[in-house]
């Protein structure tokens, strides 16, 4: 690990003022791991974990979630359990209880990829770590990598389960930075790798995530995660779905996919294929085909295209029962 400085931010203003000197840290479940591996080398950690951003409260028809709400507190909160079960399911399918007790909402939004080539400093080639150095995952072992949203520069997957539910729920991310506060639609928060996989979000220097809001949603919800063992593993494919069926017709549908995209993958094409139809295996299959229409597989991850379709079909089947 590189030597680093440490500042405990007393309030939001101090955190933002100090931001040019370093990097925010909250739960540290991802950052400390990656600092130990040498993947990230912040000069100074600005510890924001003491800021009063830990509330979950009703806001209009929706809910407001502080950036420092722990994953476990969020998953078990009555408002979330009642109104956003897809989010609770997604949170509880991720990591382990110990990690969920530490990990924060804001930190989880910013969780870095699990690409093994990104995490192993012995590889000189990683466009995320060293722009322009190349990508060792393309042509390498890429079972965990994305089939949607990749570029010739990067196919690293966004690993967060929470983010998939947030994308489906049309969350809004609220940030506070040197030039004030602003709101960012969750689906616009993460960027595609393109030629610049080192850029992962639209956050500007010094901007701090302060809270997330969720609008009211109608319909049955479900998060289904498929992985290589029964627990404590990242998704090979996952689906967050909200299906509003009235009188035998789908009035509203929200679909997002995980484990297969370079960002939390909202599948509007699938939603368009569902709305106005009567729920049926054929309709679900069509929606799944639409969601994966642009998918591109690598030799060791092409199976995920079919797997993601089946995962989505299963999730839609569950909520239409």
């Amino acid at each position, binding site marked *: 690990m590189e030597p680093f400085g440490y500042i405990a931010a007393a309030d939001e203003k101090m955190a933002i003022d100090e931001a040019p000197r370093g990097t925010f840290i909250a739960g540290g479940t991802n950052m400390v791991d990656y600092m130990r591996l040498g993947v990230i080398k912040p000069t100074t950690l600005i510890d924001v974990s003491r800021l009063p951003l830990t509330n979950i409260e009703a806001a209009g028809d929706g809910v407001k979630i502080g950036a420092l709400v722990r994953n476990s507190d969020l998953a078990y909160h009555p408002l979330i359990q009642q109104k956003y079960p897809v989010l609770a399911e997604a949170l509880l399918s991720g990591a382990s209880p110990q990690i969920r007790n530490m990990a924060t909402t804001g930190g989880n939004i910013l969780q870095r990829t699990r690409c093994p080539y990104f995490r192993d400093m012995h590889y000189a080639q990683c466009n995320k770590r060293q722009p322009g150095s190349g990508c060792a995952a393309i042509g390498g072992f890429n079972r965990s990598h994305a089939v949607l949203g990749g570029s010739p520069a990067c196919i690293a997957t966004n690993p967060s389960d929470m983010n998939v539910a947030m994308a489906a729920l049309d969350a809004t991310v609220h940030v506070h930075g040197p030039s004030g506060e602003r709101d960012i639609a969750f689906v616009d928060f993460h960027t595609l790798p393109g030629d610049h996989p080192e850029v992962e979000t639209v956050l500007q220097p010094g901007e701090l995530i302060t809270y997330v809001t969720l609008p009211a949603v109608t319909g049955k919800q479900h998060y289904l995660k498929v992985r290589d*063992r029964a627990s404590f593993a990242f998704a090979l494919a996952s689906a967050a779905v909200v299906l509003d069926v009235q009188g035998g017709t789908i009035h509203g549908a929200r679909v997002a996919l995980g484990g297969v995209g370079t960002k939390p993958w909202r599948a509007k094409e699938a939603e368009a294929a569902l709305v106005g139809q009567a729920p049926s295996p054929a309709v679900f299959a069509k929606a799944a085909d639409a969601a994966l229409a642009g998918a591109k597989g690598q030799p060791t991850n092409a199976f995920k295209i079919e797997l993601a379709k089946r995962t989505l079909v299963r999730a839609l089947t569950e909520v239409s029962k």
Partner: protein
Amino acid sequence: MSEVGKPHDRVDGRLKVTGTATYAAETPVANVAHAVIVSSAASHGTIKAVDTRAALAQPGVLAVLAVGAAPKLPDANKKNSPQDKILQLLQDDALHYPDQPVAVVVADTLERAQHAAMLVASQVTEEPVALEVPGGEAYKPEHAGPRGEPDTTRGDLAAGLAAAKFKVAATYRTPVHNHHPMELHATIAAWQGDKFLTVYDATQGIFNVRDRLATIFGLDKKNVRVIDKFVGGGFGSKGSPWSHVPLAAMAAKQVGRPVKLVVTRQQMCSLTGHRPVTVQELQLGCDEKGALTAIEHKVTSETCRFDEFVEPSAIQTRMIYSCPNVVTSHRLVKLDIATPTFTRAPGEATGTYALESAMDELAYAANIDPLAFRIKNYSTTDEQEKKPFSSKELMACYTKASEAFGWSKRKMAPRSQRDGNWLVGWGMATATYPARQMPASARVTIKADGTAVVQVGTQDLGTGTYTVMTQVAADELGIAFDRITFELGDTALPEAPLSAGSMTAATVGSAVKIACQKAKQELAMRGGKGEVTVEHHNEVSKDHDKFAMHSHGAVFVEVKVDEDLGLVRVSRVVGAYAGGQILNAKTARSQLLGGVVWSIGMALVEETVRDPKTGRVITRDLADYHVPVHADVPDIQIIMVDEKDPHVNEVGAKGLGEIGNTGASAAIASAVFHATGKRIRDLPIRLDKLLPDVHA
């Protein structure tokens, strides 16, 4: 009442659960410095230069030992035993495998050493790497592991196959596995002058470490002391000293201070051994009634270019069933990889997967119930060695486990049971592992206050050695269990072999038993007064020449398969095992449970993956190298079958440390076939292998 057999809690349980058991790396040693191995980023070639300047300039750095500038050790690669490994001690410029040590950084704190290690840069002229067994040039090794000929031929295979009414021919593949014990490999080396060396090492064999260090550093064995009071698992990886052990001693000598060197989890993928890839070709034939007429088991496994290790996967095939015509062979392919080594049930774990899977396939070809097929081919003698078994309660294992499981209700046809989205399948297999023993010594002191101390230079890998030896001693001495102290893990104690091959209970238990008897006799001769100390050297039971000695078991498994998503869940396991005298019902059960959990891992999740271009291990930590988590492990019912064996050794115990990791992975694969109708002959059975037509 006898203490032997009772389910005593571990005598060291409290220490362990309160975090006060001192493992090697935790030993408090004054003035200790910290060493970190710098691993090569390049895979294979010639090391041209190692630039240590930036690292040396860091505060707190005491020394950087690097290829080209490390102390010379002329006997670096003199092996004391065939199990010893060729080590990489910075002596030459050959780079054999990724992560090979190119330097060792020593600093006053661990953090400073870790940071400086990141600043060491090496220049390597790289050469291409060969990484795959298929297509490689195979050669015949001299031995199939420490116990056997590489090839055997019994009867006439061609005639046996020609006579067969039903035949199967199939190839099975098992991947690289890493042992990944919870406790990282670690060494603290402390010199007392130039001639005396004390080492705290995480090892399965303190005397092997002592002897190797004495050879490498030109020391008298008596002047090297190796201590290891607790081991957090070894599974074979700690069976012989790897490079980091002498590197720690080399660094300590260089800086004139004790040095602690902990191998990282990532480095343990390459620096401390692995189970090699096996490719196993099986041909089996049976007659109309299901009697085996022919078995051919051809094993090809990987090894490295600069050393040799054979995974002896066909050994059990020579004796497990009655069959007149049996051919087995072992071949190796040299690859640009680190050295493979023994991994829990080396040979039998991979070999029973292939053989028992093929047995299931032949049972289906002949339309015979898989259990009835095993019973039909039951062997009552070791037909290869032409020896009787010292004891063999395998039939009772079949009966008890199948009854507890409810096997008789099984429908033969695949895809015949369903539970919602899940197809349900049942599979079974035979488990077997040799009963071994080696010479060992024990010292017993009966004190005037009626307490006793028993001492053996053995190890407790977490298996319960401390506890079971106390039980053996209590019975022999007639002294209460809690008035006896058992000491181990120090080469200053009487010599015992490494803890491996499931032989510690038999080996150390027998030495302790006889030593206790002698101590009691000695005390009686002195009129039962005062303190006596007796040391006894115990040889291997002579009956090992006359009898074939093996533990046996039968394991029955239920799996559920979600066919759309390819998910496999083991939902039920019943295993019955006969391993001679059980010394402690609780620790024995734990060993068997652990072995079955390993089998679940082997069948469904475990695989060390190498990058196809560089050979560097991709699955470098426990996030990527999957082992079963609690949610993957169902209720496992273990049945201990009574087995009296007057021949095997003085305590009558055969050892249960590894047999749980045999057979069960085949039972799982066969259950997956029963559920789905699909044979997966390539472990682990991950979901994409069960999804049809998903590959690009």
